[in-house]
């Protein structure tokens, strides 16, 4: 199949075939990353803009490197949300970028739906690099890529996602991605951080981490934002770590060879014990590498690429 969409706003509306196309395209891209000279001329003359209304060195750098390895020109604009308050609207900023000739705009924004607004406004391709608690599709795609690479496939796997599901765009995109590809997803976290009616997305909700881990092929831990405690969503870091932290004993409940994942950055000793984060099951560093490959694949597909010429 060929890629037909103008934008990548989330995984909810992608078909399994489209997800597979992205993952397949990322395979030769990863091969480029393994070369001594990591640069191909594929996107020469194209302009990629990263527009970040929220700080994220990791995701921004990953996109920038992906653009550079494909020989696109890339520019970064980091805007604090305060400039929004000052009256500069997202639409105005986007129109300016479009007028300057951007081909792809990568948007990170603290508010859900901002990429949808942008995609309606400009002709350039828009990639959602995380919008509020809505979606973070490229993170989920790199997670899917990593699991598929390690496990040889996705169908039939048991995936446990553990932590603050309520505020997690990573969890939402992964739920759509894994369930569409035939995996079973369990989610687990404090009752105050489980969003209402999440079961209707096809997941199983567990309140005990042991239940979520039982027979899991993939264990995905989410970052707990320490400020949520001040908002009264859980009583203390200590209790959170005690009830929902992943340690070696708990990991033993999962299948042998289960993958441990984390979108980073990690609160070591809170949601994940250091020996687990750095243990043999952990694929956290490979997630980062694969992130570049997946983003290269997306830039390529959204720029109108046919078969990769890697």
């Amino acid at each position, binding site marked *: 199949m060929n890629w037909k969409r103008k934008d990548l706003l989330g995984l*909810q509306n992608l078909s399994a075939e489209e997800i597979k196309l992205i993952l397949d395209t990322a395979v030769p891209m990863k091969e480029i990353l393994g070369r001594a000279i990591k640069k191909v001329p594929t996107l020469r003359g194209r302009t990629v803009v990263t527009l970040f209304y929220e700080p994220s060195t990791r995701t921004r750098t990953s996109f920038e490197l992906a653009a550079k390895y494909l020989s696109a020109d890339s520019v970064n604009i980091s805007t604090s949300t305060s400039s*929004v308050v000052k009256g500069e*609207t*997202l*639409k105005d900023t986007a129109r300016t970028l479009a007028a300057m000739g951007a081909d792809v705009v990568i948007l990170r*924004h603290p*508010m*859900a*739906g*901002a990429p*949808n*607004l942008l995609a309606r406004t400009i002709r350039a391709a828009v990639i959602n690099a995380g*919008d*509020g*608690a*809505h*979606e973070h599709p490229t993170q989920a795609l790199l997670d899917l890529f990593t699991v598929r690479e390690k496990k040889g496939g996705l169908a039939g796997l048991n995936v446990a996602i553990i932590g603050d599901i309520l505020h997690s*765009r990573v969890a*939402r995109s992964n739920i759509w991605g894994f369930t569409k590809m035939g995996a079973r997803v369990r989610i687990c976290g404090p009752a105050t951080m489980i*969003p*209402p*009616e*999440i079961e*209707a*997305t096809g997941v199983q909700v567990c309140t005990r981490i042991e239940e979520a881990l039982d027979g899991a092929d993939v264990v995905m831990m989410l970052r707990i934002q320490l400020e949520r405690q001040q908002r009264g969503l859980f009583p203390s870091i200590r209790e959170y770590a005690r009830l929902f932290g992943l340690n070696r004993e708990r990991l033993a409940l999962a299948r042998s060879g289960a993958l441990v994942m984390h979108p980073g950055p990690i609160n070591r000793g809170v949601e994940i014990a250091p020996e687990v984060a750095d243990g043999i099951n952990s694929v956290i560093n490979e997630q980062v590498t694969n992130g570049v490959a997946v983003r290269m694949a997306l830039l390529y597909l959204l720029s109108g690429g046919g078969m990769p010429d890697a």
Partner: protein
Amino acid sequence: MHKLLIKGGRVIDPQAGEMIPADILIVEGKIAAVGPGLEPGEGAVMDVAGKLVAPGLIDMHVHFREPGFEAKETITSGSRAAARGGFTAVACMPNTNPVADNRAVISYIKARAKEAGLVKVYPIGALTRGSRGEELTEMADLKEAGAVALSDDGRPVASAAVMRRAMQYARMVGLPVISHCEEPTLSAGGVMHEGYMSTVLGLPGIPAAAEEIMVARDIILSEYTGCPLHIAHVSTAGSVRLIREAKARGVPVTAEVTPHHFTLTDRAVADYDTSTKVNPPLRTEEDVAALKEALADGTIDVIATDHAPHTLEEKDVEYQMAPFGLVGLETALGLVWTELVIPGVLSPVEAIRKLTVNPARILGLREGVIKVGADADITIIDPQLTEVVDPAAFASKGRNTPFAGRSLQGLPVATIVRGQVVYNRNLAVIA
């Protein structure tokens, strides 16, 4: 002598509960005769064959934004929108700037409405100073100046103690209290209904409980103080249950629903279209079904629009940043007909009752009836006329509607206030 004969229509009399072929003769702004085969004498004739003739519609819940937010709407532009929507009278909420919490603002609104010279505008006074929910307003003074009810609409009265005193005082003064039911600590930060859609869209939710807790509280206070309570924009099945039970017990409570709440669900938010951002939020299919049932069984007395215009710039932003509200005056009747009358939820007479007699009764107005001697406030409805909603054609300054492109049937074709035709779609008036 100014005379107008409305000839050949079917007259809806919501008081008598009937719809009968009759002509109406208007002389000097008053209804002079109602009956078959009337002759105009030397007056003009409006041929309304095939049309329905209803008492002028009354919208007891609009936001006209003047003074203070004239870029959103003025009393003149709002009055034009009301006339185009078939409304002959509106009651406007006090959340202007300054807030209508004193005689000067109430008088100003009345004066501006008179200058506009279109529909009747009845100001609603604030319940508390600045609608801050702390100190009571000078309610007797507001009533003398022309306020027909009291409300802090747009904001809940968070303190139960303040609400209790406000209701005690309002009862003494003889004004009904209109409550915006929202428990602010539960709704804080929310922008849409809390449920499956908010989970999927990643938007902060407003649970149904935020409304229902306050509905329950205010019903208890109404029962305790004896003050007539009108609950604005009911949106949940739980609120409906509480109101139904309170009415059965004899609590002096009435309630209204908006056309958008009985038409749309939170699924309309799916594309982050900010014209679906309203407070209370669009709820679920079960809630919509409960609202329709409550309209049919009389639990909900009134259909009101909560007409809330905003500028394009304010709404053309990220969903979370957009203000709450949509414009309703010019789509209301079409939605009532299309969503309620045609499917048989309400008979035409019942629908008109909720748009005329009932709001008039709650606000203590003499309008809402067709009888000899009354002001000639009349709305002519073409029950067959179908039109696609085009916000560009609105008389309101607001274009923020989620109904653009939707086909509606049953539309106002003429609006008559005190015998003057303030809106006429295409009816011939032969002098």
